[in-house]
C-alpha cells in the first residue's frame, strides 16, 4: 500500500507542468466554489435573519378566518391571554401582538396605499429589529398622541418629513371608513425596498380603538431563544391549541416567499457545485487518461512482473486522488483565506443592490462559510476524483501485458 502510494505520488511529478496545470485548475475550481457558496450562504443567512428578526419572527399565530381573508375583524381569539402564555413559555425570548390592516396614507399633496401595522412598542422592540431600523426621529414609545413611523422611501413619495402630519384612512370592523391624523415620529429603512414604501407602524392600542376592537390583535409573533427548537416548539403549541380556531406557523409557512428564496439559493448552490465538480471531473479524466495511455508499456511491465489488477487499479485511483487532493487542498486553503479576508473587509455588491434589495439583501455583505461546508466540498472533490479515476483505471486493466510491452511509447 505504502509503495503504491509512493509510486502514485512520484508519477504525478513525472510531468510536473501537466500536473501543476491540473492542480491549479482544481484549486481555482474549488476556490471559486468556496467563495461563491460563502457569498450565497451569507446572502441567504442575512436575508433569513432580516426576515425573521425584522418582520416574521420564528412563529406566527393567526385565526383561521384571517388566513382565509386578511381582514381587520378576523382577530386571534383571546389574544391578550394567549400572548401572555406564549411570553411565559421557556423557549420564548419575546413575543408581541399586532393588528394589521390595509389602508391609505395621505400627506398634504400625495397619497399611497399602505399596510398599517399596529404594534406594541415595547414588545415589538424585544421581538423584532424595528427600533434599530430608525433612521430619523423617535420610536413609537414617544409621549405623543398618534405617532406613526414610515419608511424613508414612502416619506420621499409623500414629500413630507418627521414631525409633519399625515392622514390614515382604513375600513373599521363595521365597514365604515375611518380617517385619523397621525404625526410622523420617525422614519425607518428596510433591506426590502417595498417594505419601505408600503409599511407604516402605529401603536396597536390606538389602532384597535379606532377600529372598534380595543385590545384585539390579528397576529401574534414569537421569537425563540434557540431557533433549533423551532419544530418542537411549533408542534407543542399546535398540540396545545388543537381544536381552537388558531393557525400556528413557523416562518417558512408564514413567509413562503422567504422559504422559496431559501430553497432557490440552496438549489443554486447545489447546481453551481455540481457544474464545477463536473468540469473538474472531465479535466481529471482527460489528464489521467493521457497519463495511463502514455504509460501503457510500463503498466504492462508491472502486470508482467506480478502486479495484480486490483493493485494496478488502486495505483491509478491513488494517483488521481492525490493529484486532485493536492489541488483541492490548495483551493480550499486559498478559499478559506479569501473568505476570511472578505469577511473582514466586506464585499460591496452595490452594483447589484437594486435587484438584491428587492430580495431583502444588503449592499455590503461579510461572507462566511460553515466548517461543515468546507468538509462537504472536500468530500465531494474526493468522491469526484475517485469516480473520475475509474475510467482511466478500467482502461489500464483492459491492457494485455504482452501487447503493452511491445508498444514503443
Amino acid at each position, binding site marked *: 500500500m505504502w509503495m503504491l502510494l*509512493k*509510486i502514485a505520488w512520484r508519477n504525478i511529478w513525472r510531468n510536473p507542468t501537466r500536473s501543476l496545470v491540473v492542480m491549479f485548475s482544481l484549486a481555482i475550481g474549488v476556490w471559486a466554489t468556496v467563495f461563491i457558496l460563502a457569498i450565497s450562504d451569507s446572502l441567504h443567512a442575512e436575508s433569513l435573519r432580516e426576515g425573521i428578526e425584522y418582520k416574521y419572527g420564528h412563529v406566527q399565530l393567526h385565526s383561521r378566518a384571517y388566513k382565509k381573508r386578511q381582514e381587520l375583524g378576523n382577530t386571534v381569539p383571546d389574544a391578550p391571554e394567549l400572548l401572555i402564555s406564549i411570553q411565559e413559555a421557556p423557549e420564548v425570548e419575546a413575543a408581541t401582538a399586532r393588528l394589521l390592516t390595509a389602508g391609505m396614507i395621505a400627506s398634504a399633496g400625495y397619497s399611497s396605499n399602505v399596510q398599517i401595522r399596529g404594534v406594541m412598542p415595547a414588545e415589538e422592540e424585544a421581538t423584532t429589529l424595528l427600533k434599530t431600523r430608525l433612521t430619523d426621529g423617535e420610536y413609537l414609545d414617544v409621549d405623543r398622541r398618534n405617532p406613526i413611523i414610515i419608511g424613508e422611501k414612502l416619506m420621499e413619495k409623500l414629500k413630507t418629513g418627521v414631525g409633519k402630519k399625515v392622514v390614515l384612512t382604513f375600513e373599521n370592523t363595521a365597514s365604515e371608513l375611518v380617517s385619523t391624523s397621525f404625526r410622523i415620529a420617525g422614519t425607518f429603512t428596510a433591506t426590502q425596498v417595498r417594505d419601505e414604501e408600503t409599511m407604516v407602524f402605529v401603536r396597536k392600542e390606538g389602532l384597535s380603538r379606532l377600529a372598534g376592537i380595543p385590545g384585539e390583535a390579528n397576529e401574534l409573533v414569537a421569537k425563540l431563544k434557540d431557533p433549533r427548537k423551532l419544530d418542537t416548539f411549533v408542534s407543542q403549541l399546535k398540540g396545545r391549541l388543537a381544536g381552537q380556531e388558531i393557525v400556528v406557523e413557523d416562518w417558512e409557512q408564514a413567509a413562503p416567499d422567504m422559504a422559496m428564496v431559501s430553497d432557490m439559493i440552496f438549489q443554486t448552490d447545489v447546481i453551481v457545485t455540481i457544474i464545477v465538480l463536473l468540469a473538474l471531473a472531465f479535466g481529471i479524466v482527460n489528464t489521467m487518461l493521457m497519463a495511463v495511455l502514455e504509460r501503457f508499456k510500463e503498466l504492462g*511491465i508491472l502486470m508482467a512482473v*506480478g502486479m495484480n489488477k*486490483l493493485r494496478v487499479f488502486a495505483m491509478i485511483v491513488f494517483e488521481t486522488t492525490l493529484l486532485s487532493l493536492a489541488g483541492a487542498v490548495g483551493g480550499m486553503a486559498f478559499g478559506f483565506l479569501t473568505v476570511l479576508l472578505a469577511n473582514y473587509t466586506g464585499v460591496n455588491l452595490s452594483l447589484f443592490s437594486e435587484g438584491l434589495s428587492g430580495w431583502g439583501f444588503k449592499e455590503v455583505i461579510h461572507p462566511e462559510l460553515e466548517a461543515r461546508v468546507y468538509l462537504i466540498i472536500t468530500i465531494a472533490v474526493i468522491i469526484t476524483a475517485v469516480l473520475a479515476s475509474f475510467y482511466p483505471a478500467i482502461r489500464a486493466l483492459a491492457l494485455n501485458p*504482452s501487447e503493452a510491452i511491445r508498444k514503443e511509447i
Partner: protein
Amino acid sequence: MKVIETRNLSKIYNPDKVPVHALNGVNLAIERGEFTAIVGPSGSGKTTLLNIIGGLDNPTSGSVVVEGTEIAKLEGNALINFRLHNIGFVFQAYNLIPVLTAKENVEFVMLLQTRPKGEREARVIALLEAVGLSDKTDKRPSELSGGQQQRVAVARALASKPKFVLADEPTANLDSISAENLLDIMLKLNQEENMTFIFSTHDARVIRRARRVVTLEDGRIKKDLVQNEVSINF
C-alpha cells in the same frame, strides 16, 4: 528435473484475417540450472515463445507446463500471481519503474509477494551487490547507464526467487563491455544459485557463452545444441 516443458506449442496471429504462424509445434524441455539461448532470425518466433512460456501470451494450441502447472489454464490474477512467484523477467529495454530507485525497483516484486521487511532489505542488498551496483542503490533509472539499468533488471528478476528467468534480448541495447559484464553476472548467478536462464538473443558473444542453444526458424526448432557443439556451429 524439468522446469519447463512445451508440448506441440503453436501460435497463430490474426487467425481470421491474414494468419501468421509464429510457432509451429514447438516441443522443448528445460532442465533446472540450464543457461539456454533461443536464437534465430527476426520473426522466427523467439519472443513469442518466451512470452508464452512466461504466461504473457496464450498459445493457439499445445501447452506449457511449469513444474506440473499448465499455465495456459491460469487466468487473470491467478496467472499474474503465478508469474510473481515463479518467473523472473528481463526485457530488452530494461523497463524498470522510472519513479523508483534501483533499490526500490528490486524490492518492488518482494513487496508484491508481501515478504517481511527484514528479508526484503537483506535480499535487495545481496542482489545489488551481486550485480555490482551496491553503490547505486538510491539512483533512479534515469541516473544509471543502460548496462547498469539492465543489471538492476536482472536483480529485480531474481528478487522474487523465481523458478527461472526469461530474458528477451537482454544485451541488445548494451555496448560490448556492458554486455560482457551482464553475461558474467548472469552466468555467476546461474552457477552459484543454480538459477535457470532462458534468453533470446542475436548476439554471437552471448550465444558462445550459452550452455545450450535452441535455434528457431519459421516457428519451428531447427537446431538444439549443447555447450560443446555450440562453438563448432556458431
